[in-house]
Every structure is written in C-alpha cells, then in structure tokens.
C-alpha cells in the first residue's frame, strides 16, 4: 500500500540564513496516527506548516517533496492548495481561541467550511454544523451553535475546532499541540474524542506534541525530532520500550512518571545542557554536546539513520543495544 503522505528530503530555511529543517523524510499511511515529538525549536511545528504550505514569510521551503495522494504539495498552485486545506487536510491548532474567529458564531464557522468545500446551501450547512457539534459531544448543540467562541470553555472551543476540521471527512488531520492549552482532565477527553472520530472517519493523523505521555496514549508510530532533524522513528510501543537514540531515552526518562524508579541523585533524570539555538547547532550529530555517549567520531558528519529493532535511529551506537 502506498503512503497517503510522503515527505521526502524536506528542507526549510530562514530566508537566506539558518537551516530550520534539514533533509526530513517520513511518511504517513492511511488511517494511522504518527506523532511528531520534540522540544521547542526542534522544527516539529514548522514541519506541519510546511506540509500545509502555511510557512510564515520569514521561512522558505528550499527543497524536498511533499507527496499527498499523488500531488506534490511543495509545488501545487495556491488555488489547489486552498482546496486541499480544509477539505482533504484538516487542521487543529494549539490555541482554539486564536484559530476561531471571535466575531462569528461557532456554528457559522463550521458551516463556512461546508459551504466553501462541499457547496452546501446556507441552511443545509447550518444543519450539518449542528450535527457536527453533536458529533464532537457538545451538549445542546443547536443552542451552542449560536454562541460566540468566548462564551465557550477551552475544551469546548477545541471541540468546535475539531468539528470544523472533520467537517469534510478529511484524509489527513494535522493536530499541532491540540491539548497543550487544556487541563489534564479535559485533555484526556479531547484526545479520546479525536481517537474515536479518527477510527470512524478513517483519517490519518499527524499529532504534534512535546508530551510523551500523549504520544504513548494515542499514536501508532512516533518520530522524534531534534534540532531540525529526525533522530528516531518507529512504532510507539517499540520505541518506548527500547529507545535507541540517547535523546529519545533521555526525554523518556525526564518525563515525570511516579511509576518508575527515582534517579540516584535528584528527583528527575535530566538531560544536561540545552536545546541549541537556531544557527548554533553543532556539526555532525547536533545532540553531541549533551550526550553522555558522544565520541570524537560523532562530530564527523550527520549520523545516518540506522535500522534498529525498534525502527530507525540516527546514532552511531543505535545497533549496539539500549541507549544509555
């Protein structure tokens, strides 16, 4: 089976300057959930914006292909891209308050998507919008559809955004930190909703998050990014069980989890140092300055992605057993 989305050698750079995404390749199959994880500045959000061709003016796509169901999104016309966005690719952003128009009733915002992409009449689109609100489990949807966004709670707003994203039953949903602004209890509900809708529609999901717990709970496969590159990829169960890149294992151990043993010193396992600034990334393996396993050879060029039991890992020692 061919992939729904195939990103091949994607490069994004600051206009005439620092490289943000460097030779990034991955694919998403129909119906699967791929999580992209990493810390701030690793390029995970830029990846999603590049796929949707919504890069801010300061950033430019400088190479690579983004094949979506036969078309190369890197080169399609803006008109065609507009048609794909919303209809075949749905989007959910971190902050529902900023992705909703504060001056429009929420029902109107969902109906708008249907009128543009499905050519529904005003009345039919509104009826469908109310159905969708019901579908994302908003109580009393007919009345809620008349509300303005600021009258809803954060969780309900994100449900509205989800309703708009699934309105045209897209093949792919890109969710960029969809629950980061929400409370844990609401986060659990929203993730569960997203998961069940996905099963029902059969969409593929790219879930962008910094939270490994969210990844473990929702994704099939995971891609770990560091400093604009993919450092590890594979099935969630395998990677969480046996991470082969030191950054992945470091992240896993730094995440608070009361069911695991405490470190010998301190409270949490820490990764020393900090995420490099754009344009100040180390040569060779960018993680090298923070890595306990680093040897001089790590500086000699970007480590290749090696096949491991868990998937792929960009570490010279990936095939030599568990990462330290």
């Amino acid at each position, binding site marked *: 089976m061919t992939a729904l989305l195939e990103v091949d050698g994607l490069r994004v750079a600051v206009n005439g300057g620092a490289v943000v995404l460097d030779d990034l390749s991955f694919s998403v199959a129909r119906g699967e959930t791929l999580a992209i994880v990493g810390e701030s500045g690793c390029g995970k959000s830029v990846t999603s914006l590049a796929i949707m061709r919504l890069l801010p003016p300061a950033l430019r796509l400088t190479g690579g292909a983004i094949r979506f169901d036969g078309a190369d999104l890197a080169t399609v016309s803006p008109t065609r891209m507009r048609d794909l966005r919303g209809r075949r690719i749905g989007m959910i952003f971190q902050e529902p308050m900023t992705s909703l128009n504060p001056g429009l009733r929420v029902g109107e915002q969902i109906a708008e998507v249907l009128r543009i992409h499905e050519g529904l009449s005003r009345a039919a689109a509104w009826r469908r919008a109310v159905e969708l609100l019901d579908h994302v489990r908003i109580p009393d949807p007919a009345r809620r559809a008349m509300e303005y966004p600021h009258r809803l709670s*954060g969780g309900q707003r994100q449900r509205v955004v989800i309703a708009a994203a699934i309105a045209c039953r897209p093949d792919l949903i890109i969710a960029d930190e969809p629950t980061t602004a929400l409370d844990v209890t609401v986060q659990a509900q929203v*993730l569960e909703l997203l998961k069940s809708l996905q099963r029902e529609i059969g969409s593929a999901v790219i879930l962008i998050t910094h939270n490994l*717990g969210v990844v473990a*709970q929702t994704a099939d496969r995971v891609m770990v990014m560091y400093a604009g590159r993919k450092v590890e990829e594979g099935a969630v169960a395998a990677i969480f*069980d046996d991470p082969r890149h030191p950054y992945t294992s470091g992240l896993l151990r730094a995440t608070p989890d009361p*069911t695991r043993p*405490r470190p010998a010193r301190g409270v949490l396992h820490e990764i020393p140092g900090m995420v490099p600034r754009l344009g100040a990334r180390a040569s060779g393996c960018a993680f090298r300055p923070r890595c306990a396993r680093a040897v001089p050879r790590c500086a000699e060029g970007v480590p290749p992605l090696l096949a491991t039991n868990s998937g792929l890992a960009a570490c010279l020692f990936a095939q030599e057993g568990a990462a330290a």
Partner: protein
Amino acid sequence: MTPLLSVRDLSCRYETRDGPLWAVRDVDLDVMPGETVGLVGESGCGKSTLARCIVGLTPASGGSIRLDGEELLTRRGPSLAQRRQMQFVFQDPFASLNPRRRVEALIREPLDVHRIGTPAERTRRARELMERVGLHPDWGRRFPHEFSGGQRQRIGIARALALSPRLIICDEPVSALDVSVQAQVVNLLDALQRELGVAYLFISHDLALVEIFAQRVAVMYQGRIVEQGSSAEIWRNPSHPFTRTLIEAIPIPRVDQRSF
C-alpha cells in the same frame, strides 16, 4: 514542630458582575520547615490566588496566614522582615524579569531593597548565587532576553534565594519549560533544599511531577482543598473523586498503560 507557614480559613473573594466569586474558600494549609508541599489543581481552581494571597499580592477576604507564628494578614500587609523570610518564583520566566535590567542587578535587587551588606558585598553575593544556580557569573552584565527559558528561571530562583528565605512559593515554575529543562530546574530546587533547608510551596497542575517532588500534596478544586496528605499515599489511594479523575487523566508515557 510548629509549622513555618500556617494558613487557616483563608478566603479570597472577587466582585464580578454576576455577584461575588470565591476564588479561595476556607483553606487550611501548613508547610513545615524544610519540606515541600505540592498544591495541585486545574486552571481556575484558586491555587495561584492562594499563593498570591500568602505573599500579599492579592488581598485576602478573611482568615489567617501565619509565618513562623506571626500574622501576615494585617492592614499593612507583610512587613519587610517577614518578606525576607518568604520569596516567590513566578511561572513565566519571560515576564517576571524586568527586560531593561541586567541580570546581576536583578539578582542584587532584593539585597538593595533590604540594605543587606555593602554594595561590593551585594555584587559578590549576586555572583555567588549565579554560580549556585548554574549560571556563569560573568553573564551578569547581560540582559534577560539573552537567556533561554530555563536559564531565566534560574535567574528567578537566584533572585528568590538572595535574601536566604525559609520559604519559597513556586507558582508553576517549570510549566513553561521543555521536559529536559524542567528536570534540570526541579533537580536544582531539590539540591537547594537539601543544602539550605528551604521549604517550598510548589504549585503545579502536574500531579505526576508533584508526586515525585513533594513530600505532601494538597489537591485544590473550585477554591477549596479537597484532599491533603502524603504524596505517595494520595497517588496510591486517592480518596476524593476529583483526585481520582486527575490521576486517571494523566497521560503516562508507557504504552502498556493506555487508557483509551
């Protein structure tokens, strides 16, 4: 042992268009010298308001807050001597540092206000503190925007430590930070406690983190503390339904514990 901080029947009310809103209601809370108490709850539960009432940033509507047996809720608010005993670390390491002041000045400021030592001694102390929290002392001439989020939070911690307080109230000190940096900052707080014996009231929305870091936990819900106890006990055996919901909702980074 007498508690270092003792909050009794504390209430805080806001007047809104729809009548009074109780942000904090009848809260009892103790912090012993040298211990860490975690205060957990969701957004809007009143945990930040409670913290702000303790340091006098928000006026309380009633009740009592005693620091070392002395009342803080007087008409004039906490005295300078009382302020010296308790400091505050803010959530947002970007907003909580004056963008126009150099780091050394920011760390010295508490010493300047309390007129502790000579100017030369204050500068020396600021450099020591920078080193203690893991910042290079030669970075003192830089401005806050030249630092990363984690480094700025270290600056905030150094500033809070300058007066050698016995209690530091940390309001979501790591929730704006990346996971790997969060671990560094929490470990720093832990090391400082071991070394200096400072007590923390650690406010967080992350029950997993609090369970690991705090000896005792208080769970707040709709302005009230609904459950209080040792963190291990609450994690294993939560008694209030809200605590149970909270624990169940935490996404555990392990695939064998999928909840849906």
